[in-house]
């Protein structure tokens, strides 16, 4: 048995809509992963620091205000500055179609807009982690 996957579920910025973040966090937990939830109103600096300190395998970023591009760009910078570049970055929230490729270009590994199925999110993370284990 390998160690459980460690996930940081993060709510950056001023947006307080945390239903999605909490639901996804519970889904990860139910799938046997270890979940750390940051709580609301986190700066990207604090999220990057938590990702480093908690040595997580996955970061799940949830943004519903529409500020996902700026926030993702900033988080990727802060992670790089800390040398924490090994974590899988998954972004969820109110994300229009045309922004999804942009998020991938910015450094996200997966994008799950509102309406995504929980099982799809969990399987994506599992599959990616397995891929990485075999790399």
């Amino acid at each position: 048995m390998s160690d459980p996957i460690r996930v940081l579920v993060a709510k950056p910025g001023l947006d307080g809509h945390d239903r999605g973040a909490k639901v996804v966090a519970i889904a990860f937990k139910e799938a046997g992963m270890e979940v750390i939830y940051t709580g609301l109103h986190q700066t990207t600096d604090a999220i990057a620091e938590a990702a480093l300190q908690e040595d997580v395998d996955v970061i799940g970023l949830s943004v519903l205000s529409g500020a996902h591009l700026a926030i993702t760009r900033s988080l990727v910078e802060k992670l790089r500055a800390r040398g924490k570049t090994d974590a899988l970055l998954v972004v969820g929230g109110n994300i229009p179609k045309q922004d999804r490729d942009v998020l991938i270009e910015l450094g996200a590994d997966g994008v799950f807009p509102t309406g995504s199925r929980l099982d799809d999110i969990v399987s994506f993370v599992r599959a990616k982690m397995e891929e990485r284990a075999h790399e």
Partner: protein
Amino acid sequence: MSKPVRPVVLESGIEVKPVYGPEDLAGIEFANDIGEPGQFPYTRGIHPLMYRARPFTMRQYTGFGTPAETNERFKYLISNGQNALNVAFDLPTQMGLDSDDPLAEGEVGRVGMAVDTLKDIEVAFDGVPIDRISVSLTINAPTVILLAMYLAMADKRGVPMNEVRGTTQNDILKEYVGRGAWIFPVEPAMRLIGDTIEFCSQHAPKYYPVSVCGYHMRESGATPVQEIAWAYSIAKAYIQHGIARGLDVDDFAGRISFNFNIFGNLWEQICKFRAARRLWARLMRDEFGAQKPETMQMKMLAGGGGAGLTIEEPENNIVRGSYYALISALGGAQTMALCCYDEAYTIPTPRAQLISLRTMQIVADEIGLSDTVDPLAGSYYIESLTAEMEKRMVDEMRRVDEMGGMVQAVATGQIQTIAARQAYEFERAVESGELVKIGVNKYRSENPESGEVELHPYRQAAVDEQIARLAQVRRERDTELVARTLRAVRDAAEKKQNVMPAVLDAVKAYATTGEITKIFKDVYGVFREPVIL
């Protein structure tokens, strides 16, 4: 014998029988439990003639970008027959940050309009007939500031404080459960609400300082029964706080209104509202000893329905919206608002907002919903379900009492944990198809995301404009007066006096939202969220 039928269980856990009859009315007494409209216990409505005398108020949630842009949209809605406003503020304003604060970056004017100073409120309501259009401000943690700005603007426009009508949302306890726009710890946040209640009861008696929101807790995972029960537990906390300050319940509790949700099973929502009115009347009379009918009459905005709308095939949301409007009208709402069909994607376009407004107007004027009061009364199913829901609301309120009351339950995160778990189970039920969503888990089409939705642009020019105006206000104001009034705000906060008079002076001197909030953060500290999953 007939074939076995599939079980139907409502979200509130009530099993629905295939057929209801007279036996289901056993234990329901007409005079005590149903009564006449406009009479205790107000099950059938708080006014004797309801919409026959005056249709529900229409109040779409609106606001984006700069106050000038929002002002234009306000006027568009009013010119199309909307008779009230509900103002959306951007996240920096909701969190008490100025537009030029580094933490506000990327959020200025995004989900609502930016308000830094009284100047912005003046621009936003310029030319809006505030003497006949009642204005609801969707603001919570920094309410004292926005309320003061609104009162100051009204005063400048010649509407004296004791004549100002309107509402501030100002329900901080629900922010800890859902929506998340909290700043201060629970205890001082309660005191700020007490300040607005006390101030309005003394100086602005026509104003509704608090609108308790079951709405957002429902969006966050509460069942319809919990939506009402939790909202009432919150309202109880505010009322107890007001009484502890020495106020008479009849002098302020009637000015607390409610904001409830309308998505879900049609019958369950209608009965939820009927049961809620009855329960409120009983609670106010029996638990708080209210004497005035107004105190016992539960006044509500029933609207929104955001969690019921879907990203998939967004046009279906227009259809859902019209059923939600029907629910709201059959439920006896005083005020209605609908989420727009494109709102899962974007700030609504003027066209989408007009469709929502027209939906409400069709319900009010075209298809007969205003003809007669509470037309479903007396139905075996409706009365039986209303009674069952009231019973469950009472049980759920007792559960909150056992947690130590709502203040305690949110400070420790107990309510949040229940809501999150139920939200998870709700999503699972949608994914399994147990809870049917057309176009999502049943009759799903190949490409459910429509290309039709026009996205609202985020204009950097509007942000620059907002920041420039703030800079100009800062340059032109009397800095000494600002400093002096801000010192008075700090002094009142430190001495635990009512901060409203000092905040009024400060906003009149054009102190900013951020400057005043910073003082409160210094004095009160900030909330530490209990993170439990």
